[in-house]
């Protein structure tokens, strides 16, 4: 691997601790936890992993898989790259917390505290307006699930991953852990050991789901570890758009979110996976996401990272057969005490495959946002095309941006393009907008919104509006 270029602003030491400022973060409230069905003790060991498996009533193979994964986790060293993970205390985390005994099919069946939280997040309302189905995960378990009836009739499966293991064991076992094996990295191993919840989706051949399926992840407990596991299988010629959102309360000590997302897109299938990650600034967000795209299929990641203390996430697409296309649109916004180490991986395993990455990162108030990406072309994957564009916008001299584009090519007949730019908000731009009656905040916010516009305009309107609104919230009170 080689670093092509590294672009940084004058480097300042980052604060270790996130500044807890509930005023800037809208979703920092939390619910009482005294009525919970089950809360594990803190810490991680074989007994804890076995207990999770037993409580879930899992088959023996899954129990063994978990225990094996725990061993791998314990053997693997912490990554020595990316962000500062020294604040994670694995023995201080709650690995399994069950807020409710059962999953609701209507919101009325969801415990009142939790239902109110989702009301505040606007999920039931969005569900009525523009979603085909919803899964709401609260702590470790999915507490609400819905899917439009006509989709169910066409054979679409949309359940939580625990139920999928019980109800659809064959298709589950065929794919689970095959795209991201536990040995992939330390956090994939951790997730494999203690996973709970997440979405399972199967879209049968030729079925086209018009409106998105949405999952909403909420952490409520302090020092919680959320380890959802998502598996999406898009069969031949089928089409799905899956959206995930995430928030958490603002606490003075940290929580950990470490998900694994595995996706298979079969021939001529199409999958778009949109994330609007808005964790509070005390959450470590260390996620492994990977898709396998087969002949003439299209896989798209739309990855918006606004929250968290540290995010390390590089959604990957393996282009397995000719004609497969991969696209990643990545937005990272780092404010005070935040480090977004986001990016993309594109692996061209077959001829005539193409990939595109557009990354926009914004840093302000001492935040650090960057792009870390890999484009890899394997020997024999002729006539591949890849285009990577990373733009960074730095709002003040305290903040930092990094670009680490790795390129590995074992084939001559390829077309690879990489462009990177770093810009600062020009004084002249601020003056121009302010001279038209905008406040400094409004002017900065408008410039930032414009900066990400080429990416946002590719989103469905509801999500574009949501993303712009979150960015405006991030910008409030910060003067560029």
């Amino acid at each position, binding site marked *: 691997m080689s670093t092509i270029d590294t672009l940084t602003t004058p480097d300042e030491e980052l604060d270790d601790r996130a500044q807890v400022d509930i005023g800037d973060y809208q979703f920092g409230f939390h619910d009482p936890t005294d009525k919970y069905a089950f809360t594990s003790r803190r810490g991680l060991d074989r007994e804890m992993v076995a207990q999770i498996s037993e409580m879930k009533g899992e088959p023996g193979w899954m129990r063994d898989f978990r225990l094996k994964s725990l061993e791998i986790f314990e053997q693997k060293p912490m990554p020595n790259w990316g962000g500062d993970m020294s604040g994670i205390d694995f023995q201080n985390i709650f690995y399994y917390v069950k807020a409710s005994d059962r999953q609701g099919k209507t919101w009325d069946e969801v415990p009142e505290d939790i239902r109110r939280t989702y009301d505040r997040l606007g999920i039931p309302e969005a569900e009525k307006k523009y979603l085909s189905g919803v899964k709401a995960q609260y702590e470790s378990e999915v507490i609400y699930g819905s899917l439009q009836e006509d989709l169910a009739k066409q054979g679409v499966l949309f359940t939580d991953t625990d139920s999928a293991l019980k109800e659809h064991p064959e298709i589950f076992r065929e794919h689970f852990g095959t795209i991201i094996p536990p040995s992939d990295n330390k956090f994939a191993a951790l997730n494999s050991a203690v996973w709970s919840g997440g979405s399972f989706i199967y879209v049968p051949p030729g079925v086209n789901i018009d409106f998105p399926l949405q999952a909403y992840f909420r952490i409520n407990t302090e020092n919680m570890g959320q380890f959802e596991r998502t598996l999406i299988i898009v069969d031949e010629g089928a089409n799905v758009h899956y959206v995930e959102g995430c928030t958490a309360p603002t606490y003075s000590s940290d929580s950990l979110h470490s998900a694994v997302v595995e996706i298979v897109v079969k021939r001529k299938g199409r999958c778009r996976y949109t994330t609007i990650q808005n964790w509070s600034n005390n959450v470590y967000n260390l996620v492994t996401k990977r898709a396998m795209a087969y002949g003439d299929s299209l896989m798209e990641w739309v990855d918006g990272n606004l929250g968290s203390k540290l995010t390390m996430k590089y959604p990957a697409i393996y282009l397995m057969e000719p004609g497969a296309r991969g696209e990643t649109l990545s937005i990272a916004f780092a404010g005070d005490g935040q480090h977004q180490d986001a990016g993309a991986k594109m692996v061209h395993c077959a001829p005539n495959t193409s990939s595109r990455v557009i990354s926009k990162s914004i840093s302000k108030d001492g935040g650090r946002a960057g792009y870390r990406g890999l484009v890899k072309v394997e020997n024999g994957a002729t006539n591949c095309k890849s285009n990577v564009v990373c733009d960074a916008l730095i709002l003040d001299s305290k903040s930092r941006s990094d670009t680490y584009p790795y390129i590995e090519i074992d084939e001559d007949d390829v077309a690879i393009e990489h462009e990177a730019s770093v810009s600062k908000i020009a004084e002249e731009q601020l003056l121009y907008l302010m*001279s038209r*009656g*905008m406040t400094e905040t409004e*002017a900065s916010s408008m410039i930032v919104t*414009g900066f990400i516009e080429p990416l946002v305009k590719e989103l469905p309107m509801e999500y574009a509006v949501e993303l712009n609104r979150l960015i405006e919230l991030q910008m409030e009170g910060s003067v560029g």
Partner: protein
Amino acid sequence: MSQPAVLKIENLHVSVGDTPILKGVNLEIRQGEIHALMGPNGSGKSTLAYTLIGHPKYEVTEGSITVDGVELNELDPCERARMGMFLAFQYPVTIPGVKVADFLRHAISNIRNPERKEGEELMPMRDFRKELRDTMNELNIDAEFARRYLNDGFSGGEKKRMEILQLAMLKPRFAILDETDSGLDSDAVRVVSEGLQKLSGPHMGVLIITHHERLLEYNIPHYTHVMLAGRIVETGDAALAHELHANGYAGVRERHPQEAAEEQETQEVTTP
């Protein structure tokens, strides 16, 4: 209209860094008046324009700028805009990704409702669209303009028309046009000149900074001022503008040897 508002500039001294540029400018503009400001390059015309709207690079070291008695010196550009100050920039900047219509809707919401805070309601979409469409029609600006990104990929002429469109939408009490006619072909100059002609009237005081005659043919100044070495050295009527266009500034320098000498010095200092 009751009493016309007055923009009053008194003994204004302005520096950029340690370099004094304006050295005691006095000027009074009432709503409804058109003033032309002329003078050789480097005499301080653009400095005056930027200072009036509060460019942070230009530091007022002495003197005052008031609108109806309210001191502007401590106000930021946003607050001045909301009081009715407007500058048509000589070099309008590009704001990538921001649509002209969105930009204008924010601007107009702030100017019409000076108490507005960020995040508060914008002018209703329907009213805004109608007004924008009507204004663009009046100025013969293609409707497609509204959907483009602000000044992004605009030609010189398009940028200047964009400034005139903003002027039309924001209806300031005092408009300063900084060489709005420079660098344009004659068709574009005509469009901009006609545009300003349509917009000016009893509600607007206009300060036109120009080297050319065309803009002033359409917008005959009530007063013409000549700036030299950071001071207004002569004031006359439209005839003075004619004379300067015809004969240049040699006569002005002869009549004001002290300023001419200062101009010479400044050029020696700034030219390595």
